[in-house]
């Protein structure tokens, strides 16, 4: 006979069944039973200092490990504080399970104290969400939530749990299997479509592979490399795709798009076949959409049918898991290697590399290059949003998947630091760096407490330009240098670090950069490095919004 347990305990037992390695969260009135159950469990729980931090940490944990991240908050303000983090994960297809306390079932809809309709609020930013009204449904709901979050095109799932359901008792049975009749993702591509695509590949003279975050989510980096080498095709990546193909490979073109490399954008504009893999033709990638890859036939592999032909007409759509489809490709694909195209690209790469001014000034790109060298390109790098994010994409040579954590779709400032905490918790053996801006870091700087208290050995590099740099750059280029509310007067970040019990280092000269990074890496504590960089450095190359992809400022014309 099984004994009865209350809903809170059932939730905790269910999380154990899912092998949840870490939970990030913050308590409150309507989550009290749940927190009491956590008190009695040995689940690893990290108390953040703002619920947004919990959602981003769960997201960072998921991106670094591939396992769904878990965060918990109370009802009302606790739940709404998760929203930005949930939306961030949704836009980038990150598996996450968010659990919120809710007012008692009979109070729902009465504007009770700390009531918010979090189901309604998160409906458009979750893959699915549940309000559990009967404790008997709870275990099955948790099982379904993890299944839905982590399969198909992954995404966040929210479970809203009223406090009376947390207290109600029933027997605990964790289901072995899930069956959700409306949810059956397609994994294997259509064989006929694959054959058609393979034929197109074999006939192409100038192919380009355009790899996105889907390659990483599906765990297909190895297959991508084999595929690219087998058909001798250059590979360009989206921001979220960085690391899906080794950055130092001779076929790598780095990132494409608004701040992509000149040679990547030119390769796309001149290719005769574009093979889009787990990417979704975001407007930051395509530039002016009707002139994107104008000479190319397009093959699009994606697990989400709705991502296909959404913005670009596709010649051969293949709905399926990237890894599964690439494995099929590898069995039959063949393309005669002709050198003309790859040599042309090599020439572009050599003639028009990424560059910045080499002088005595402390320039942000240099800092990133030094972090890359000091970590041998093997660290996990979490970024915020802005210029520093684009410089990271350009100057840190990502070699492996799951080592760049960045909010690509939503572009959430404040993401990087908590995401880095989540990554370090999930991958304690990896070196974790946060590359942030003086604007972004202040959006979740309170998490210094979380990091220090939990002895999270994480290195934060603030590229401090005293501006909201990316916005300032746009104002400089397109708004006549009218710097409307983008100049920042900052606190002393070294003192802030020290006040929280972390180590603070200020770096204002070029020659101090490398020693500071090395010192930070030797220090077994949370370290904040405040790099005082050139204030008005710009990110180049740049495709102005709405322009053609090869219509770039600061690169090959």
């Amino acid at each position, binding site marked *: 006979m099984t004994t009865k347990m209350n809903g809170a305990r059932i939730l905790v037992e269910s999380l154990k069944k899912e092998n949840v390695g870490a939970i990030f969260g913050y308590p409150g009135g309507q989550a009290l039973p749940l927190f009491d159950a956590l008190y009695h469990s040995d689940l690893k729980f990290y108390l953040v200092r703002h619920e947004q931090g919990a959602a981003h940490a769960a997201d960072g944990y998921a991106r670094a490990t591939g396992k769904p991240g878990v965060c918990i908050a109370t009802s009302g303000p606790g739940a709404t504080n998760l929203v930005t983090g949930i939306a961030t994960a949704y836009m980038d297809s990150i598996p996450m399970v968010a659990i919120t306390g809710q007012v008692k079932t009979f109070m729902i809809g009465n504007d009770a104290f700390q009531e918010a309709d979090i189901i*309604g609020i998160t*409906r458009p930013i979750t*893959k*699915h969400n549940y*309000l559990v009204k009967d404790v008997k449904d709870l275990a099955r709901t948790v099982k379904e939530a993890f299944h839905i979050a982590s399969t198909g095109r992954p995404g966040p799932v929210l479970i809203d749990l009223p406090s009376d359901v947390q207290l109600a008792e029933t027997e605990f049975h964790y289901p072995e299997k899930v069956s*959700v009749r*409306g949810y059956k993702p397609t994994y294997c591509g259509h064989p006929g479509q694959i054959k058609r695509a393979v034929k197109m590949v074999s006939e192409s003279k100038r192919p380009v592979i355009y790899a996105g975050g889907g390659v990483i989510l599906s765990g297909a980096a190895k297959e991508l490399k084999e595929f690219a080498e087998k058909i001798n095709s250059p590979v360009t990546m989206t921001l979220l795709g960085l690391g899906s193909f080794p950055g130092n490979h001779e076929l790598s073109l780095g990132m494409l798009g608004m701040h992509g490399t000149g040679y990547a954008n030119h390769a796309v504009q001149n290719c005769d076949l574009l093979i889009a893999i787990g990417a979704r033709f975001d407007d930051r990638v395509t530039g002016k959409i009707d002139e994107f890859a104008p000479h190319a036939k397009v093959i699009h592999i994606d697990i989400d049918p709705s991502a296909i*032909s959404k913005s670009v007409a596709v010649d051969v759509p293949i709905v399926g898991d990237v890894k599964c489809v690439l494995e099929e490709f590898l069995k039959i694909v063949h393309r005669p290697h002709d050198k003309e195209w790859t040599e042309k690209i090599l020439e572009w790469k050599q003639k028009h590399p990424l560059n910045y001014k080499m002088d005595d000034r402390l320039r942000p790109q240099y800092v990133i290059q030094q972090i890359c060298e000091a970590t041998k390109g093997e660290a996990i790098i979490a970024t915020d949003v802005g210029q520093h994010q684009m410089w990271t994409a350009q100057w840190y040579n990502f070699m492996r998947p799951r080592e760049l954590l960045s909010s690509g779709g939503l572009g959430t400032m404040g993401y990087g630091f908590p995401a880095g905490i989540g990554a370090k918790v999930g991958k304690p053996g990896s070196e974790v760096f946060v590359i942030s801006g003086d604007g972004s870091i202040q959006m979740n700087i309170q998490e210094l407490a979380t990091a220090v208290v939990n002895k999270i050995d994480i290195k934060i590099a603030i590229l401090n330009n005293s501006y909201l740099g990316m916005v300032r750059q746009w104002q400089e280029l397109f708004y006549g240098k009218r710097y409307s509310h983008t100049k920042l007067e900052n606190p002393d970040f070294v003192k802030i670090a020290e006040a929280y019990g972390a180590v603070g280092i200020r770096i204002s000269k070029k020659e101090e950069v490398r020693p500071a990074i090395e010192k930070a890496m030797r220090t077994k504590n949370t370290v904040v490095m405040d790099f005082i960089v050139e204030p008005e450095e710009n990110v180049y190359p740049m495709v102005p919004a709405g322009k053609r992809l090869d219509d770039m400022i600061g690169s090959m014309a």
Partner: protein
Amino acid sequence: MRQTISVLVENHPGVLARISGLFSARGFNIDSLAVGETEDPSVSRMTIVAEGDERTLEQIKKQLNKLIDVITVTDLTKTKFIDRELILIKVGIRAQNDRTKIIEIAETMKANVADLGLHTITIEAVGETSHIDDLIELLRQFGIKEIVRTGKIAMETESREKPKTIKEEEE
């Protein structure tokens, strides 16, 4: 282009909000939407009539299909189907012989008198949308006071070939 889509969904609270939220968030237009329980009480059927170009309609179907609570999406426009709509029309009686004229029109149009008042007469009719539209036109001369329409419900008719659901079409 106008399309009739038949959607089987889980019959629980919040599903309608999910569907209508999807339409509003993505800027899709719904002409009409009718919902009701099916022969299986755990399942509801929604008949959605939507307007848009080919690409938009394709996206509507794909996005609907992506919702976990959606079990199947069938594009009825690609099959044989019958559709019906129920309408109540309240018409004013202004002249003496209006009443008989209206009742005559109703009879010819296979509609019924649902309510007879001193100053108004309410006609009920069931039929295909075009038939309902004709009826409205015929009654317009009397001065229409109020119209209530249910929106279209539709059902596939028996045919040898089964229409494909979107999920099958992708394969």
